[in-house]
């Protein structure tokens, strides 16, 4: 089903309306076991092999809370400057949908574990970086749902499917939901602020170690609320766009919804409160359930679980485990590396910060570390349309390669071939160097033999050089490079050649 929604060009939409955003972000925690049972949480296991009576909702089974799930949520709440509830409960969210076999999801309702926090984010504008404070409404605990595959029908999508298949491995994996307060005053920067916020959340969770946030595996999912109003008017009716699963899509979803609502409003129409589904392929959304009638979850306190009442001692103990947070770390690294705001932002935007940091920690010179990750490796990531972190080359391998360059065993050109080999699965650095025969020919006698051969092959050139025409040396150096299959250091060949002929440059 497709809907060709009329849209208004973005600049025009922003000139006429002010956007108000709200973001609900769900992130799977990186615990070893599920939130309410001991089933493993490994990604990619065979369907329905990580399930038990609790997460299958079998009669008589009883949930027990995973302490790590509570601790991770409190730590995230603290990192988001939230207050931590002294007492709170879980709640049942009732709905009939086969992704939850219990016919309810255990969540939290009016008593979230963490509330009233904030997160500062920075977006790049033409006038330099601009900071926004995003207020956090709440952070609460819940469980993920099973995974549906729609079968039959022509499209493989839910519409037109004949039936669905369900894998409950994901059902019960701990989730935290982070909800912002309405974000106002962002104007045309709204899509960038939304993206910066989700990026910062991701980095925060990674630095806390509560989740590795593998977005391509769907471990972070965002619901984007957008409304528009004319300056001075009350806030408009909001829509909620679900299924927004990448940083780029967060930005696109906000932008496309502003363009859509602006077109509706400016033609005298009314925005309806509804859930919309975002489509990665088109960057547009289509209407889903109409909220006004579909949502009635009849929350009530979960009778199978007792309240969670974190003592202040426990909270302070957890506060003591917080690492240096990403914003503080960025400020420190920028100062330590002594690079410009612009260069630093390039590293951050390219996803290179952690990789450069790790490479420097391996003992590589900062400038060389930056050069690799923003140069050759960024190019490879770009060509393959993958995240830099997913390029299968490690900071340790970069250290190894850099060391070989520094001791003259590799040239930059050969080093790039080593990287190519690692990515092609030819093994570690030494394996590729040996397998492809990539070591620089630095043995003087071997180079001199090649030089002598080239001089014999090109006697006229040899004569010119002896006569003082040093620019003719290129032909000999070229022949030597060819003979050594590019594995000699050209500058060294040149020096040896002049030495051989008794000519000074």
């Amino acid at each position, binding site marked *: 089903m497709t809907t060709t929604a009329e849209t208004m060009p973005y600049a025009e939409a922003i000139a006429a309306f002010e956007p108000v955003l709200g973001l609900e972000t769900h992130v799977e925690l990186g615990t070893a076991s599920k939130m309410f049972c*001991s*089933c493993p949480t490994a990604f990619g296991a065979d369907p329905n*092999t990580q399930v038990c009576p609790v997460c299958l909702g079998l009669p008589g089974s009883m949930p027990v809370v995973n*302490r790590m799930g509570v601790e991770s949520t409190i730590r995230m709440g603290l990192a988001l400057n939230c207050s931590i509830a002294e007492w709170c409960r879980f709640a049942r969210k009732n709905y009939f949908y*086969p992704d939850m076999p219990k016919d309810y999801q255990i969540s939290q309702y009016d008593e979230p574990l963490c509330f009233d926090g904030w997160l500062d984010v920075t977006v790049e504008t033409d006038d330099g970086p601009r900071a926004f404070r995003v207020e956090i409404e709440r952070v609460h605990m819940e469980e993920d749902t099973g995974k549906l595959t729609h079968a039959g029908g022509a499209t493989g999508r839910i519409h037109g499917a004949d039936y669905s298949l369900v894998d409950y491995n994901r059902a019960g994996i701990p989730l935290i939901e982070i909800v912002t307060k309405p974000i106002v005053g962002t104007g045309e920067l709204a899509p960038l602020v939304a993206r910066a916020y989700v990026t910062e959340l991701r980095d925060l969770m990674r630095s806390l170690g509560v989740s590795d946030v593998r977005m391509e595996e769907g471990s972070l999912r965002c619901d984007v609320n957008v409304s528009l109003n004319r300056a001075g008017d009350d806030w408009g009716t909001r829509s909620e766009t679900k299924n927004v699963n990448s940083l780029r899509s967060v930005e696109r979803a906000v932008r496309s919804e502003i363009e859509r609502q602006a077109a509706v409003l400016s033609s005298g129409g009314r925005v309806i409160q509804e859930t919309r589904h975002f489509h990665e392929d088109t960057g547009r959304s289509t209407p889903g359930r109409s909220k006004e009638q579909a949502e009635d979850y009849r929350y009530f306190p979960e009778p199978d679980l007792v309240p969670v009442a974190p003592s202040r001692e426990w909270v302070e103990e957890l506060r003591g485990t917080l690492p240096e947070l990403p914003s503080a770390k960025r400020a420190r690294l920028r100062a330590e590396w002594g690079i410009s705001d612009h260069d630093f932002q390039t590293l951050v935007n390219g996803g290179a910060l952690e990789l450069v940091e790790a490479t420097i920690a391996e003992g590589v010179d900062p400038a060389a570390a930056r050069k690799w990750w923003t140069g050759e490796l960024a190019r490879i990531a770009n060509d393959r349309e993958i995240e830099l972190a997913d390029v299968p080359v490690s900071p340790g391998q970069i250290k190894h390669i850099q060391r070989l360059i520094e001791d003259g065993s590799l040239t930059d050109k050969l080093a790039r071939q080593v990287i190519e080999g690692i990515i092609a699965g030819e093994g570690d650095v030494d394996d590729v160097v040996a397998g492809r025969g990539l070591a620089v020919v630095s043995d003087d006698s071997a180079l001199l033999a090649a030089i002598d051969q080239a001089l014999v092959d090109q006697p006229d050139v040899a004569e010119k050089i002896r006569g003082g025409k040093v620019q003719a040396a290129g032909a000999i150096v070229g022949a030597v490079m060819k003979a050594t299959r590019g594995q000699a250091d050209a500058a060294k060949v040149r020096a040896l050649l002049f030495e051989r002929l008794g000519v000074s440059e």
Partner: protein
Amino acid sequence: MTAITRAEVEHLARLARLQLTDDELDHYAGQLDVILQSVARVSEVAAEDIPPTSHPIPVQNVFRDDVARPGLDRSAVAAGAPAWEDDRFRVPRILDEE
């Protein structure tokens, strides 16, 4: 005064995927009303200083360590499924009602 209206019962029935006839709605609305009014009497004796409880035993903070253990054997899982295909539960088409 009624504690629950017929319209509310109809709404609840729809949420619970129960299809009730008009006669049944009248019948159950009356019965539920009696039940709710009886339960409501509790609030007449509950004083301001008695906090509402959601759990019969006064315990809190019951947690387990984050240790993974194998779950059920898949053949056992499949044995409990009404329909099974491709190692997954097979369920009827969704969104029919939209």
